[in-house]
């Protein structure tokens, strides 16, 4: 090319070897952002998409109008769940490293996103998670043994070995099956919510995608249909700053918050500190109340940071500074809630380490139980003939033939 390129290419704030730099993150103080009525007109509450709703301040005290005023038991339950998610992640990550499972994805540093929202919703509300919302499955009592068994594709796997690890499901407790295809759950959640409205009940749906996934068509479909039919749905964008190797600017986050994406359709947006469990709980409650009362959809951007690698197949040291998380301005959601509880005299370091120990044991126990249902190397194994089931409600002739052919070949 003769002339120099004039194309704008978004640049990550820091790459390996450079000093982390989060100056691009617009922050607000805890308590700074106002809490409007849930029936406010969108035009009046656009500020929610620009500020950052925060409750916990630097001294770990809950501040301002968004303080959900959760009782001690709820707060302790939230901490327990976040700890459990982290312990679960830690164990499974190591099991993958030891070759016990084929693949794993942690939610390290994003635990408040799932736990804060999950606790603010009703058990009758339907959840459409992404693969980094294991917290929602744990909170909805999917059972660690069951989740581990899934990751092992063993005889106790709730999807009978059909999906690779971390694609959980829990129909009984209304958590959808995770898809490997990004964002596809988003319009499905809107459709589910439309059905709830058509039936005339006040169930709502909530779905989660990552910052990078917002570029997909399904994000646009979901926002459009949700706006047109005023579907009772909460659409969450988990902005953990990275999409594998590309930072959130490559998804269009350089000029405006993801929370603002729906404003052009008349969908209110809330930008929230995703590492502040109280704030996440509060904005979810706000959006749920709005939806239940016929106020339609809300888009929530949860600002957080992907503390670990994208997945066990990924090596982030190739594309981002190793120490970024350590200096992330919104800190570690678990430490922040823990300190909040300690500060209130509801919790202590001793209790914390004790519970942590206990959990390590419990998770270890669960892993042993899960392995009893079979591992990749030792039986019991799933019946191979089952691989032909559930393609259709009833197995058509050609699949019966293929099944017979396969069993014969396997000498079964």
């Amino acid at each position: 090319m003769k002339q120099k390129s004039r194309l704008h290419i978004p640049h990550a704030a820091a790459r390996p070897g450079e000093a982390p730099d989060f100056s691009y993150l617009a922050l607000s103080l805890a308590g700074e952002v106002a809490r409007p009525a849930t029936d406010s007109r969108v035009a009046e509450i656009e500020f929610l998409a620009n500020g950052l709703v925060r409750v916990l301040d630097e001294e770990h005290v809950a501040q301002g109008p968004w303080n959900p005023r959760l009782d001690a038991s709820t707060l302790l339950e939230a901490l327990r769940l976040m700890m459990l998610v982290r312990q679960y992640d830690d164990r499974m990550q190591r099991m993958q490293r030891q070759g016990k499972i084929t693949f794993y994805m942690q939610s390290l540093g994003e635990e408040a996103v799932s736990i804060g929202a999950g606790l603010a919703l009703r058990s009758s509300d339907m959840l459409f998670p992404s693969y980094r919302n294991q917290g929602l499955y744990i909170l909805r009592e999917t059972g660690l043994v069951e989740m581990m068994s899934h990751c092992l594709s063993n005889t106790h796997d709730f999807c009978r070995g059909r999906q690779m690890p971390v694609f959980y499901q829990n129909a009984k407790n209304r958590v959808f099956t995770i898809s490997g295809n990004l964002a596809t759950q988003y319009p499905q959640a809107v459709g589910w919510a439309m059905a709830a409205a058509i039936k005339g009940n006040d169930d709502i749906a909530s779905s989660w995608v990552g910052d990078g996934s917002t570029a997909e068509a399904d994000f646009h479909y979901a926002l459009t249909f949700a706006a047109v039919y005023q579907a009772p749905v909460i659409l969450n964008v988990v902005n953990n700053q990275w999409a594998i190797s590309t930072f959130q600017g490559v998804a269009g986050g350089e000029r405006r918050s993801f929370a603002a994406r729906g404003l052009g359709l008349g969908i209110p947006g809330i930008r929230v500190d995703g590492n502040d469990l109280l704030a996440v709980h509060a904005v979810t409650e706000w959006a749920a109340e709005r939806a239940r009362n016929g106020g339609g959809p809300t888009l929530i951007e949860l600002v957080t940071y992907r503390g670990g690698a994208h997945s066990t197949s990924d090596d982030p040291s190739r594309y981002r500074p190793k120490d970024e998380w350590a200096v992330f301005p919104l800190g570690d959601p678990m430490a922040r809630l823990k300190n909040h509880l300690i500060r209130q005299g509801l919790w202590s370091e001793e209790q914390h380490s004790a519970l942590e120990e206990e959990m390590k044991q419990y998770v270890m126990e669960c892993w042993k139980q899960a392995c009893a249902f079979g591992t990749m190397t030792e039986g019991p194994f799933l019946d191979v003939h089952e691989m032909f089931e559930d393609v259709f409600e009833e197995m058509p002739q050609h699949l019966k033939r293929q099944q017979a052919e396969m069993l014969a070949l396997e000498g079964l």
Partner: protein
Amino acid sequence: MAQMNMIQAIRSALDIMLEVDPSVVILGEDVGFFGGVFRCTEGLHKKYGEHRVIDAPIAEGGIIGTAIGLGINGLRPVAEIQFADYIYPGFDQVVSELARLRYRSDGTFYSPVTIRTPCGGGIRGGQTHSQSPEAIFTHISGVKTVMPSNPFDAKGLLISAIESNDPVVFFEPKRIYNGPFDGDPNKPAVSWSSHPLGEVPEEYYNVPLGKAAVVEEGDELTIITYGTIVHVAQAAAKLAGVRAEIIDVRTLMPLDVDTLRQSVAKTGRCLVAHEATRFGGYGAELAATIQEECFWHLEAPIERVAGWDTPYPHAFEWQYFPGQKRLLAGIRKVMEAR
């Protein structure tokens, strides 16, 4: 019994299902107040209300994606894609989600969506209003594919599709919406009233998915086809003066192999015909299957007659369309081969 064209038969099926099953909802572009660009939902919006017959934004992927969600929450959605040529933006939700939901969740989640879409040419629609993309759906594990060739089947198969808990892509050959078409565009159009299968019961009935229909019995040649070409094949066989057994596949996936096998075992000669482009078309699966199942009975290579491997050109619609001439040539080739 009543006289219905294919549009009326489809509307009757939708009307009955909306009536008998309160969980049935229809959504699509212009299907509501207007009643659909081909009028298949005319009157249903008024009769069942705007909450059950829903005008959707112009987003095929959004229509199918939300339909999946409606289905997961206990409704039974019938989505209309205005032209099959415009189904591609919704392809991902069909392949990656609708077709896979039951399998990946071990049957705990499924969505009984039926996708209706008009297909095929012969209406001067050019390359973006004439396509027959059925083959890209028959290759997808987890969705059933249907294409009726007459009003009676259209109603009965559509009712079965809506009642099925499996997803179904339901192709409607728009050229024969108003009357059968034997492939000769110069003949005056005929209406369904003169055709036995234009006789359609007003009430509920169904035609099971997965069963082919022997349209004409014969012992010299088997012609396997579906949709518009069924009628072209009948005319061509008459012209050729061969005792052809003509089979209308009706359900493309799952395929009724037994009916095909029995026929070709009897005739020993086989022609496969469809309107879609030839290369990698559904006819390839038919031919591959027949030679596997009936090789020792075959007295001649299985001949494929199909649309050429080009887009559907506006100016040369009738040179593109596999009409009587092409079928006749195909029949002769199979009959003369030895």
